[in-house]
């Protein structure tokens, strides 16, 4: 990578000296000396000088600076590589050991921006297309006119179409900022109009208001209008997506409850705490991974799923055997007892783990976002939707297509009859409650990715969960699914209009009114089981 750089860099940055990093003293070395001042101003000059020096050591040193690995010890500036080895930034040679009094060079946001710009110029010719793409994006934002000659070279040499497009857009952005003539400006506007995202809109907005040329102006205005129109359409789709995402969270939180409350009829106030237990199980699993298998960390979430399920299910069995089995047929008393259980569980976690939030890290595949026809989709949210649907499918399968599921339904529909048919009702009760609790625990794994992992986690979902189950129709899994997504999407369409709070109030009022219309929810169970 480094070897291919010098010749282009010479052209791109109009470097004065080309000495392949062998210089004893030069602008690069002088720049390095500035780091020892430990002042943001000096560091900024150093970054600019290093980028302009064209020295071979500049790129790795600047990258190390960006990653927070560049340190100063006396007069020596050095950085650590991936293996923890120290390299002298001035000579590029490896140091014998890590200097003891090394102090990491501090950055602030301004310097980070300066660094991004500097690296944008330096990595235009990197071998890695992803890096070139990054460089193009950085130039798009910085609109650094000095980079224009290098950019043109890069465009003509670029083999990857996507990167080329980004480079052309960066060029257009730079040109539009200070257009040389009308044709150039119009060309730039066309390019940006095609790009059509928020960033392009911003640049065009500026052009439409700041440029003098009336032709350019009207072109920019037309482009702004076109993009705004498209963005409006997109925002509808975006709202649906947000709604689905919120709906999946609601569904996750409620799905365990649709078993314990919906199927078994237990007003399970401790349901939220089962979700919380799942989140803490995730935290513990991640801690184990950190301690014993850091290399496998990306698998920690997957590993947390069975852990959370078993933990919550085990607690569920204890609650069922210890308390709830005495209360079958008295659903309201279960409210009382499970409320007590929820208080105890909350306080236990608070005593064990402390009241503060615990850190659950997102694995690499769940962080960041990608662009889908202009729609920005976060990986984390996408995986949560996928995961929710998978859990739902699993549950449906278990209840409808396995002997255990058959027994569960039999016992909850008619206990005495089921017992007469030889079903061990006590065992099935325990299994059903454990299943509901376990599923709640699994939900906790996913919710730990988007919410606080604290003793209060469960409390924030319990009310919504009951609403979802009741709206969908108690005892009906499909109802729960439809109701969660309906509430989620409804909320997200109301939110931009009414604000977050009023949207939620409106949803609650609608729910109350809806129940008047259909007193047993969306999908009411038919038959005598309901009315007794």
């Amino acid at each position: 990578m480094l070897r291919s750089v010098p010749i282009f860099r010479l052209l791109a940055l109009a470097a004065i000296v080309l000495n392949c990093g062998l210089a004893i003293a030069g602008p690069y070395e002088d720049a390095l000396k500035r780091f020892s001042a430990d002042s943001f101003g000096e560091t900024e000059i150093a970054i600019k000088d290093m980028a302009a020096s064209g020295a071979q050591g500049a790129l790795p040193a600047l990258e190390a600076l960006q990653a927070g690995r560049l340190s100063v010890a006396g007069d020596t500036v050095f950085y650590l590589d991936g293996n923890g080895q120290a390299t002298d930034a001035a000579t590029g040679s490896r140091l014998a050991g890590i200097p003891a009094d090394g102090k990491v060079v501090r950055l602030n946001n301004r310097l980070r921006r300066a660094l991004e710009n500097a690296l944008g110029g330096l990595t235009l010719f990197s071998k890695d297309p992803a890096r070139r793409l990054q460089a193009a994006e950085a130039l798009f934002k910085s609109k650094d006119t000095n980079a224009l000659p290098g950019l043109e070279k890069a465009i003509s040499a670029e083999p990857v179409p996507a990167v080329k497009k980004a480079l052309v857009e960066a060029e257009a952005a730079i040109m539009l900022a200070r257009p040389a003539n009308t044709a150039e400006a119009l060309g730039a506007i066309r390019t940006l109009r095609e790009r059509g995202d928020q960033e392009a809109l911003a640049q065009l907005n500026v052009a439409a208001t700041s440029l003098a040329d009336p032709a350019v102006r009207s072109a920019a205005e037309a482009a702004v209008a076109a993009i705004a129109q498209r963005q409006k359409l997109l925002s509808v789709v975006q709202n649906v997506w947000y709604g689905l995402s919120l709906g999946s969270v609601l569904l996750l939180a409620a799905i365990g409850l649709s078993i314990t409350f919906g199927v078994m009829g237990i007003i399970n106030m401790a349901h939220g705490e089962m979700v919380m237990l799942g989140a803490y199980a995730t935290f513990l699993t991640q801690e184990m991974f950190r301690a014993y298998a850091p290399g496998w960390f990306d698998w920690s979430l997957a590993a947390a799923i069975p852990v959370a399920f078993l933990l919550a299910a085990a607690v569920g069995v204890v609650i069922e055997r210890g308390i709830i089995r005495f209360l079958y047929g008295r659903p309201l008393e279960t409210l009382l007892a499970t409320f007590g259980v929820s208080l105890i569980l909350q306080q236990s976690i608070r005593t064990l783990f402390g009241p503060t939030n615990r850190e659950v890290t997102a694995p690499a595949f769940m962080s960041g976002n990608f662009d889908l026809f202009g729609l920005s989709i976060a990986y984390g949210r996408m995986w949560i939707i996928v995961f929710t649907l998978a859990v739902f499918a699993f549950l449906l399968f278990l209840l409808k297509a396995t002997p255990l599921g058959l027994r569960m339904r039999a016992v909850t529909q008619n206990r005495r009859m089921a017992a007469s048919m030889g079903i061990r009702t006590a065992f099935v009760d325990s299994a059903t409650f454990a299943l509901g609790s376990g599923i709640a625990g699994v939900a906790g794994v996913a919710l730990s990715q988007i919410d606080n992992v604290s003793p209060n986690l469960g409390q924030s979902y319990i009310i919504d969960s009951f609403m979802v189950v009741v709206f969908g129709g108690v005892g009906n899994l499909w109802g729960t699914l439809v109701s969660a997504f309906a509430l989620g999407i409804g909320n997200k369409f109301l939110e931009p209009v009414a604000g977050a709070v009023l949207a939620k109030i409106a949803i609650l009022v609608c729910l109350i009114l809806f129940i008047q219309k259909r007193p047993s929810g969306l999908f009411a169970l038919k038959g005598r089981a309901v009315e007794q």
Partner: protein
Amino acid sequence: MIIQALLAQLDRTGRIFIAVLLGALVLVPLANFALPESSAFHVPTHIVALTGKYLCYAVLALSLDLVWGYCGILSLGHGAFFALGGYAMGMYLMRQIGPRGVYGNPVLPDFMVFLNYKELPWFWYGFDMFPFAIAMAVLVPGLLAFVFGWLAFRSRVTGVYLSIITQAMTYALLLAFFRNDMGFGGNNGLTDFKDLLGFNIQAQGTRVVLYMLSVLLLLAAFLLGRYVVTSTYGKVLVAIRDAESRTRFIGYRVEHYKLLVFTLSAMLAGLAGALYVPQVGIINPSEFAPTNSIEAVIWVAVGGRGTLTGAALGAVLVNGFKSMFTTGALAPYWLFALGGLFILVTLVLPKGILGALSGIGKGWQWRALESARHEDTGDLTTASPDPAPQGQGNATRAAA
């Protein structure tokens, strides 16, 4: 004569209850005023105020018991009526502050000055008059309950569905009152009250009078409740609780019966809230929190559902317990005790403390617990298949 007639209806528990209340009405203020502080029997003013607060909770519990214990309507939103009554009183008290607020505005409360209100919002008009405020404390919860109940009972929303939508109601109100734009002071609510009908709200005398009013309110609520549940109307309520469809088939307009008791109960809760606010000195949206309403249900269950005395007793006991255990070394662990209490009461005393007490003569409660276990399940309606939350009626009459 009337008193005699009322007393004649009372059973043993009821008489003891009234006696306790009358005793508390007279002796506590006496012990507060007449005895010197050094005396072992002196009741400090803050204990008086604290007891007054418990008594307001007791009225709330009693009103909830009327609908739940006697009519089988499990409301998980009774805290909302309580809080609305409290807000009505709070608005009156805010208007009484007058120019003594920090910004010195004679009309607008401080939070409105701060939020740039130019004039009083229309719904604050009239709250400078005490009778109007008290009327609102009763009417607003009553009206809400009436509209809500009319909708819900007419469309025969029952059981768990009804419980959950009452919860949705109080949750929606919680969110609404949290909004600063609503004009009720947002999260901070209404506070820093100065005087009530010209009396300094912090004065010992005012506190004692408020306490006595709380005792009287509880007494009145109890007598009213007794009157309702022992009347023919009350018998129909119990019939609705135990077999709603059957009652309907016999020819009673079940909706009307439910609506009346629900509205009455909400008005009672509103009055309790109005008396609660001057004693605690603040009303804010957290009173609407669904957990508060659930807690109220638990007081009733702990004391004894379906016994008015039990509901009041439960409220006082649970809150006293809470006050006691949140101080000192046990403070971090008191939730264990509270949670444990709830579980224990449900398992061992399914009819609450009072139910257990009156049941001692009739045999051990485990039997009821065992029989309940064999009841059919899958029952989602609130009406418990266990037919006898023991009204003092049959249980104590048998004992007497």
